[in-house]
C-alpha cells in the first residue's frame, strides 16, 4: 500500500508576521520555511507505518503545491524518510485551487490513503484535506489522532468532544490529522540527509484552476496595554481586579 502525505511549506512558527505593499502581501524577508507542523506529524506516522512489519504500507510519497522555493522543505521530508516527492509547480494562494491541483494529480495515482494536516499555520484555512476528498469523491475522516494498519485493513481514531471514536474505513480515503497522530516529529538523520539528495522529486505542471478567495489585506493585532503587576504579598488584589475591573468572578 502506498501512502501520500500532503505537505505545506510554511514560515517557521516563531516568525513575526510582517506585511508589505500596503499590508497586502506577507513579507518573506528573512523567513525560515518549515514543513507545516501537522503535516510533519502525519509524515512521521506514515514512516512508522512503513517500518511496521504488520502493515502493508511500503511506500510513502510526499506531495506539495509550491514553487521551486519549496524544494528545501520537500528535501527535508525526503531526509526524514519519505521515498519520493511530487511538487506541483504553482504558487499556493487559495485552498480551493490547491486542493483542485492536488486532486488532478492524485486521481491518477493508486494509494491506500492520503494524509493531510488539519490546518496550515500560515493562513489557517483548515480546508485543503476536506476539499481534496470532495474533489476525489472519496470518504474522509477529520480530527484523526491515530491511524493503524493491519495488513491491508485500516482503522483510524477520531477525536470527538470528550473522547474518541474508532472508525473502520475501506481504502482509498483521506485522513485529515491533528496532534496525537504522532507526538514528536521525526528529525532527519545524517544518513537520511545524504540519501534525500538522490531520491526522486518529480515536478509536474499545475492544472488551470479558479481561485475563490482573495486575501485583500492584513492587519497586525492592536498592542496590548501593559500588564498590571500585582504584589505577590497581596494576592487579594488580583481577585479584586478580576471581580471589579474584568467583571469575571
Amino acid at each position, binding site marked *: 500500500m502506498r501512502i501520500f502525505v500532503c505537505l505545506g511549506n510554511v*514560515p517557521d*512558527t516563531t*516568525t*513575526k*508576521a510582517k506585511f508589505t505593499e500596503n499590508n497586502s502581501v506577507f513579507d518573506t524577508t528573512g523567513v525560515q520555511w518549515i514543513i507545516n507542523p501537522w503535516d510533519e*506529524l502525519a509524515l512521521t506516522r506514515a514512516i512508522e507505518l512503513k517500518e511496521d512489519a504488520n502493515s502493508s504500507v511500503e511506500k510513502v510519497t510526499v506531495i506539495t503545491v509550491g514553487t521551486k522555493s519549496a524544494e528545501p522543505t520537500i528535501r527535508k521530508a525526503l531526509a526524514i524518510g519519505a521515498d519520493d516527492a511530487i511538487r506541483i509547480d504553482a504558487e499556493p494562494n487559495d*485552498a480551493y485551487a490547491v486542493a483542485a491541483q492536488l486532486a488532478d494529480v492524485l486521481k491518477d495515482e493508486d494509494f491506500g490513503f492520503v494524509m493531510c494536516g*488539519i490546518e496550515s499555520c*500560515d493562513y*489557517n*484555512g*483548515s*480546508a*485543503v*484535506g*476536506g*476539499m481534496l*476528498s*470532495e*474533489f476525489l469523491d472519496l*470518504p474522509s*475522516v*477529520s480530527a484523526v489522532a491515530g491511524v493503524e494498519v493491519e495488513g491491508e485493513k485500516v482503522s483510524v481514531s477520531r477525536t*470527538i*468532544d*470528550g*473522547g*474518541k*471514536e474508532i*472508525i*473502520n*474505513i475501506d481504502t482509498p*480515503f483521506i485522513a*485529515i490529522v*491533528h*496532534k*496525537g497522530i504522532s*507526538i*514528536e516529529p521525526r528529525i532527519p538523520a545524517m544518513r537520511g540527509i545524504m540519501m534525500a539528495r538522490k531520491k526522486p522529486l518529480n515536478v509536474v505542471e499545475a492544472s488551470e484552476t479558479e*481561485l*475563490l*478567495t*482573495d*486575501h*485583500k*489585506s*492584513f*492587519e*497586525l*493585532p492592536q498592542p496590548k496595554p501593559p*500588564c498590571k*503587576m*500585582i*504584589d*505577590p504579598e497581596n*494576592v487579594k488584589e488580583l*481577585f479584586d481586579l478580576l471581580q471589579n475591573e*474584568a467583571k*469575571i*468572578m
Partner: protein
Amino acid sequence: MTVLVFTENWDGKFKKLSFELVSYAREVAEKLNVSVVALSIGEVDEDELKKLGDYGADKIVSITNDHLKTLDNQVYTKVISEVTQKENAKVLILSHNNTGKAIAPRLSVKLKAALGSGLIRLPSEVDPFTVYKKVFTGKAFANVILNSDIKILTLSQNSFKLISSDNKATIEEYSTDIQASDIKTKVTSTDKQTGKLLLTDAEIVVSGGRGMKSSDNWGPIEELAKLLGAATACSRPVSDEGWRPHEEHTGQTGKIIAPNLYIAVGISGAIQHLAGISSSKYIVAINIDPDAPIFEAADYGIVGDAHKILPELISIVKENLS
C-alpha cells in the same frame, strides 16, 4: 434567499456555541436582508429546537435519520448541500470546531462556494463579500474576499455574542434518502467522558506549565479550576513529558481557545503557546521569572512562586465566592 446555519447538538441538546452561531447568522442575514434557516440533524425535541428561534432563526429544518447518528463527512455533505439548495441559501454558516472543519471544506467543493474559515467577527462588507479572520495563528488578521455565488463561513467558538430575539420559528421536518451502504466510515467503538467541561467550551481555564515542576504538583491547579468552574489546560512541554494528557495541550499545534479568563501558572509564554490563547479576553500570569514573555501577553501578572501563590488564591476564592 436565506442564510442557512448548521446547528450541531450534543445528545439532543444545543450549547452556547449553537446559539452563538444562530445569533451570528441573524446578523449576517440582516446585512443581506434575508431570513435565517437553522438546520438541525439528529434527535432534538421540539422545545429544544424552538430555542434556536430565541436567537433569531426564522425557520428550523430538522432531520432525524438513523444513518446520521455518527458523523460521516460525505453523507453529511450531501444532506447539507441538499438543504442549502432547497432553502436557496446564499450563505452557509458552521462552527469552526471539529465537525465544521470536517464538512465545510467538502461543502465548499460540492457547492463551489468560497470558504471563509475561523472567522471572528461579522463580514465587513457584503459586496464584495469580505470576511475577517485570524491568520498566522493569531499573529495577524486578514480581510478575505469570497468570490462565489454561495459563501461558506465557519465561526470561531466564543467570538460572537449571543443576541436574543423574539422570533417564533417554524419547525419543518425534512427527510432524506440515505442507504446504509452510503456510510463509508463505520464507527466501531466510542470512548467518551460525558459531563466533563470541555476545554474549548470553558469560560475560565486554569493552565500549568513547566514551572509546576512535576505532575504531582497539579492539585492546586485542579482545585482552583474546580472552585471557578473552569477547565484545566497545560503547555506543550507538560503534555510531552506526560504530566498531563495531550487533550489539555493548548497552543499552536494543540487546542486554540478563547475563554473569558485564562490563568497561566508557571508558563513562560513561548510564541507557540500564545498562539493558542491570544484570543482570551483576560490573561493572568503567575510566574517566578519577571522576564517571562507571558507577561507581555497578560493583563494581570504576579511575579512569584506558584506553590505559594496558588494556595493563597484558592483560599481567597473560597472566602469570597462561597
